[in-house]
């Protein structure tokens, strides 16, 4: 279905269990809907097993994890692990403020990509890049998306090559 024919894709929107912020979810629900999504918004403090249950129930084309409280990196890993454990594969993106310091952003993005995220949107122009991602997904499907590789800071290069080697 193309955008012109109504809702182009189904999107499950969630945060992580420890995160009670939901202005980000309210905003993203509207934003995703305006970009063609039929959104189910699970609200604050969502346990990972509820996310799994809702993925099974709603069968989304895209799972979006938004977290801003600083514990989202861990929380997103838990969601990815639970999905794997349940044998579910669904395109999943994360974004917001995933740790307590912006200097972690490159590392966190790299790690979540290696754990199975389709993409991770952090920092100043996250929303613009997300809009492009949604437009791509509507045309080609979210699973076909290739995230640009994050720039590796020189002091992190060793760690990155280690994790690639694994």
């Amino acid at each position, binding site marked *: 279905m193309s955008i012109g024919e109504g809702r182009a894709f189904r999107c499950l929107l969630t945060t992580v269990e*420890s995160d009670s912020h939901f202005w980000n979810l309210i905003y993203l629900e509207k934003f995703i809907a305006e970009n063609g999504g039929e959104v189910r918004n699970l609200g604050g403090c969502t346990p990972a097993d509820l996310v799994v249950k809702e993925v099974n129930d709603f069968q989304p084309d895209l799972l979006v994890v938004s977290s801003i409280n600083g*514990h989202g990196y861990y929380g997103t890993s838990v969601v990815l692990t639970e999905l794997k454990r349940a044998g579910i594969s669904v395109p999943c993106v994360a974004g917001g403020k995933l740790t307590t310091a912006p200097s972690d952003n490159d590392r966190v993005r790299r790690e979540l990509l290696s754990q199975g995220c389709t993409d991770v949107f952090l920092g100043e122009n996250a929303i613009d890049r997300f809009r492009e991602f949604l437009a791509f997904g509507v045309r080609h499907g979210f699973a076909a998306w290739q995230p640009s590789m994050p720039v590796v800071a020189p002091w992190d290069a060793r760690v990155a090559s280690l994790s690639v080697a694994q």
Partner: protein
Amino acid sequence: MSGYMDRFIADARRRETLVVQPRMGFGNIATMRAGLRDVHDLDIPVVGTITVDSYTRVGDHVSSIERLKAGEELNGYPIVSHPMDKTREMLAGLYGPGFPIQVRHGTALPLRVIESLVLAGLDTTEGGPVSYCLPYSRLPLEHAVSAWAESCRYLVGEVEHGHIESFGGCLLGQLCPPSLLIAMTVLEGLFFAQHGVRSMSLSYAQGTHDDQDRAAVRVLRALAQEYLPSVTWHVVLYTYMGLFPSTPDGATELIRSSARLARDTHCERLIVKTVSEAWQIPSVAENLDALRVASAAAGGPPVVAGPQEKEYFDEIMEEARCLIEEVLNLDADVGAALTRAFALGLLDIPFCLHADNQNRTTCVLDDQGALKWGDIGNLPFRGSVRQNAAGQLQSSELYRMLNHVAHRYDHGQPNREKGDDGKF
């Protein structure tokens, strides 16, 4: 006799100085102690804070320690999970009559946290059955109400001077008309009193418009006097709790304006944000700077009320009183009344996604930049309360409202709505 917090506040009040307080919390014990020590060493009237991390807030006392061991930072201090003797050591030589310490924790089921703070030798905390449930948890409001009742009784049973600050004056931190915030904090105060708490603070979070804010705090003081005559209370103001300016100048000026608001309206205590608010967890140094800035800005004579303030006062008073009365009429038990009020939509927090909130109300900014009701849902207002139907909000319009204060301060126009002659 009274506890450290009440005595400290009473002293500062006598000297007409504002007490400032950070919202600081670190996962690591040594970092938390260093932060408390530096705040303690400031030469301004200041109260210390232990802000609890958000694993603890949702009752997960395992992940906090595991994540610390994995080398990650937390967004607060896991007071339940760290060994109790370590927490006591952390406080030794700092906590005392000259440096009260409050635990701020955002838990809907607070008993474990309150037990821990009591075991650590503390007696002062924050919360409330509504304000620590609907913005902070998915648990049913009814559970939070009974857990908070039990925890209040536990606190006053265990320590002589248990003090609780209601978070009702903040709720979701932004886009909520002042009358609902005031009604909520007064109602939570009544709830605390019903469960034996004799010492409390009532809160208000700075909004979007100076005159409206000054009027709101005055309404809060008047209603607290009327409804809570037999407990010891003071008013705590929160520096703007919504989307914060991202530039250092904008953030600093907003912090200053909150200190002036506190001064003008005789708030006893101010919880201060930092220049890192829009970004991520602030450093100790940023907290210290912000506390100094706020304390200095609160100097000087209070500004007297202007004519517009009187109009806001009448409007907020009418709405807040109506909400309080309607809720109290539902049940003699304040907790039961609060639960029913939400079920009936007589209380309804704009934009709040919690399942026990009807989410039929909205809030808009008027052409003055003041907070007004959009839809009033089933709120019990009569006649004169105007609705400003918002229609279907687009994401960009929602963001414009959320970002309104940040935008003004980041562009050096804190008083834009007031015209060129506008002063504080």
